């Protein structure tokens, strides 16, 4: 018999506690982000597809065309090409194509890059119906940013 009333009171109390919690939540700020109208800034460790890092002074790519990223990529989705101008010591990047359709964002390329010329972008608006949209010319992207 005492169990009956104990259950009744504890049950009623727990119901009241539940209602109190939801009442408090009702007045907390809304967490919905109305996506196309408002967007969130991505956190620093967000991994979008890779992008080239520009030199702080010239804005040109820091890439030395060593090809380490191309070799490190397990899916073979990076194509790098460069050329050495007459009398110049270093190679200059002429082409950096990322085939994002096979990229798994493992980050081996970013790790392997000695000069720190590539990094993860914060890009996430990537929906498309065309395959070709995911073959990204990163050099063009860097120049476009500049």
């Amino acid at each position, binding site marked *: 018999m005492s169990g009956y009333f104990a259950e*009744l009171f504890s049950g009623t109390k727990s*119901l009241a506690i*539940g*209602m109190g*919690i*939801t*009442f408090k*939540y*009702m*007045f*907390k*700020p*809304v*967490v*919905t982000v*109305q996506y196309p109208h408002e967007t969130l800034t991505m956190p620093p460790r967000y991994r979008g597809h890779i992008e080239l890092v520009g030199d702080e002074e010239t804005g040109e790519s820091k890439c030395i065309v060593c090809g380490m990223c191309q070799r490190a990529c397990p899916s073979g989705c990076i194509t790098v090409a460069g050329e050495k101008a007459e009398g110049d010591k270093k190679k200059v990047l002429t082409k950096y194509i990322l085939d994002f359709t096979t990229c798994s964002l493992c980050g081996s390329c970013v790790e392997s890059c000695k000069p720190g010329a590539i990094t993860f972008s914060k890009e996430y608006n990537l929906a498309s119906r065309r395959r070709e949209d995911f073959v990204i010319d990163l050099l063009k992207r860097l120049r476009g940013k500049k």
Partner: protein
Amino acid sequence: MNLTSEPIRLLAFVLGVIAFAALNAAYLVWVERKVAAHIQRRIGPKEVGPFGLLQPLVDGIKLMTKQILIPQGIDPVLFRIAPPLLLIPAVMSFVAIPFSEILVAREINLGLLMIFAFASINGLGVLLGGWGSNNKYAVISAARAVSQNVAYEIPMLITVITMVMITHTLNLNDIIRQQSGGFWNWYILRLNANPLMPVSFLIFFVCSLAETNRAPFDLGEAESELIAGYHTEYSGMGFGIFFMGEYANIVIGCSLATILFLGGWQSPLPFLPNGVLWFLLKLYALIFTVIWIRWVFPRTTIYGLLNLSWKYLIPISLFNLILTAAMLKIWPVS
């Protein structure tokens, strides 16, 4: 023709009441969606009109323009008769409800009895709708809803009998008049009549939740197992009328709780004027609680539901009844 004559006044009132019921059904859906959204920290309807206020209108137009499908193999009479059978008693009950001292269609001596008489037709509407649909889910749902109605009508009516023993009348306006002069005179706080008065209110409120098939007692429309419940086969306005009937019943349940326990149109403090505003304020506070409860508690099982009724509500309300009778015998309320 005299515009103030009784039949015309009554007709005007009934028209007004139908508009009130329809508006309530439409806008309570909006309130429900907004409250649900904010409890879950979402925004809720916002695109149609400011704060999504035109959403109910758009929903209504959508329902009205939809084709009313009559499936094969149904019972043609019962299928068509069921939605009005749910809505009409609800609208009829409004006739007896006093919104203020004068704003009442008809001050009926047996108002309380009449409302409960009409409320029991509800169950019939649900049962016929489910049965006439020739759909196994609808039948199961209707059976559940009716067994639930029967189980919860008992403690509800026992509580009402307790109240009537104290009030000595079934006239709703008289019951409200007895609660004049401040909130301490409302029946929920008249502990001298019965020390368990708040418990009576709680029992009444829980039972009215169950009677109107509201969460957490909405077993009749458990989507995960029964599609939509007894109105599975209804489309367009057939479904719309079921929906309106359900919301009208919620309004009536809350009105009754307001009238019996919270003093109806009486103001909470003696120096404030009485009036329809107080009634609506209390009514919507209760309706808000009903909506709030829906988004707090998960649906019970059928066993939990019947256990609650037979093991807790009925014994407690019976004890309450005996206690009230004894109290009345020893210290008669003037």
